[in-house]
């Protein structure tokens, strides 16, 4: 059957998630904090980055973490060691965080502290380069991590993640001398799919580039009262 153009329902499949994400975002605005959604493949170094960054960030910011480990408390336990409030989010076996899961995490966070006293809320998403990119959680910015050991073709194979990210951290750069990987090609591929991305090279092991990453966070904090880009789709 032919369908005339005006005969449309035009309902976004992710409407329910987006409503919840907007709701979360209103909370973040009300609490006057910056929320960053950290995403990468498993093992790219999200938790290691947090372990390295949190003590330095906490020197002049009040920070908390929502930890979206799939089934275990391992990452949350690693982060508790740096004395920052960490709330584990139960994701069951879901391959990504969605806005409702983060909302649940926020309720737990509120039981522990008053979020309006926070400046920065970091969300570690489930390790997965595909799905988290499609599910907004209400964050101000998406942060994608790509480790140099993953190869320079990954931005091309998982384009949505790198397209959606506002900042891409190329991690584990301390390993570059041992790898046949082309750092310039990683950069070029990221910027081909997303010319607006900020790309920063970091090593959680040596601390290289961490200052640039923190500088980006500070800039995002300073800009957070400006209107946020519309939640992505079509």
């Amino acid at each position, binding site marked *: 059957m032919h*369908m005339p153009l005006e*005969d449309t329902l035009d309902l976004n*499949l992710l409407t*329910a998630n987006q409503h919840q994400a907007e709701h979360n975002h209103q909370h973040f605005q009300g609490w006057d904090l910056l929320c960053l959604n950290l995403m990468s493949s498993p093992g790219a170094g999200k938790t290691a980055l947090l372990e390295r960054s949190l003590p330095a960030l906490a020197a002049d910011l009040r920070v908390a973490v929502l930890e979206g480990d799939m089934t275990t408390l391992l990452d949350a336990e690693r982060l508790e060691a740096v004395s920052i409030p960490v709330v584990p989010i139960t994701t069951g076996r879901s391959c*990504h965080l969605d806005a409702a899961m983060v909302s649940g995490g926020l309720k737990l966070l509120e039981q522990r502290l008053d979020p309006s006293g926070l400046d920065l809320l970091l969300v570690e998403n489930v390790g997965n380069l595909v799905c988290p990119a*499609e599910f907004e959680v209400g964050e101000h910015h998406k942060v994608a991590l790509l480790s140099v050991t993953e190869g320079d073709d990954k931005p*091309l194979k998982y384009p*949505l993640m790198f397209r959606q990210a506002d900042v891409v951290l190329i991690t584990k750069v301390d390993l570059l001398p041992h790898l046949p990987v082309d750092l310039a090609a990683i950069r070029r591929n990221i910027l081909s*799919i997303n010319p607006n991305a900020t790309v920063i090279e970091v090593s959680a092991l040596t601390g290289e580039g961490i200052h640039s990453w923190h500088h980006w966070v500070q800039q995002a904090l300073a800009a957070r009262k400006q209107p946020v880009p519309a939640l*992505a789709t079509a």
Partner: protein
Amino acid sequence: MHEVDMTKCLLISLNEWRDRQAQPTAMVETVHLDVGRFTCVEPNQLVTTYNAAVQGSWLDGSELTITEIPFVGRCVACNASYNPVPESAYRSPCCDHPLKEIVSGRELRIRSIDYRTDARAALESGQIQRTR
């Protein structure tokens, strides 16, 4: 794995749509979905998980039809439309420019629903309605 989550999203949207209807929906015949090629959804898997998920629900027996929407970018240098491909890093073939503007491919939308509001009336008239 994410097709399961996408199916859940779809069912939530369909339930919300049903709850908004003035007349009770007797039966859904077909759900028409637009899925862009630059999304994380694989159409065949979505149909499979949908068929499994609706069993025993009010949507049992309905069919999910997916129209794939091509991934189209626009070259900001010369304004030409093109299909971004990984082999050329999604850059424009005309000017070798990065993918700045996406024209289509990010769609994930329920375009329309073919349904009957009342089984007896529908049987008599043979009419199936489509959403507006």
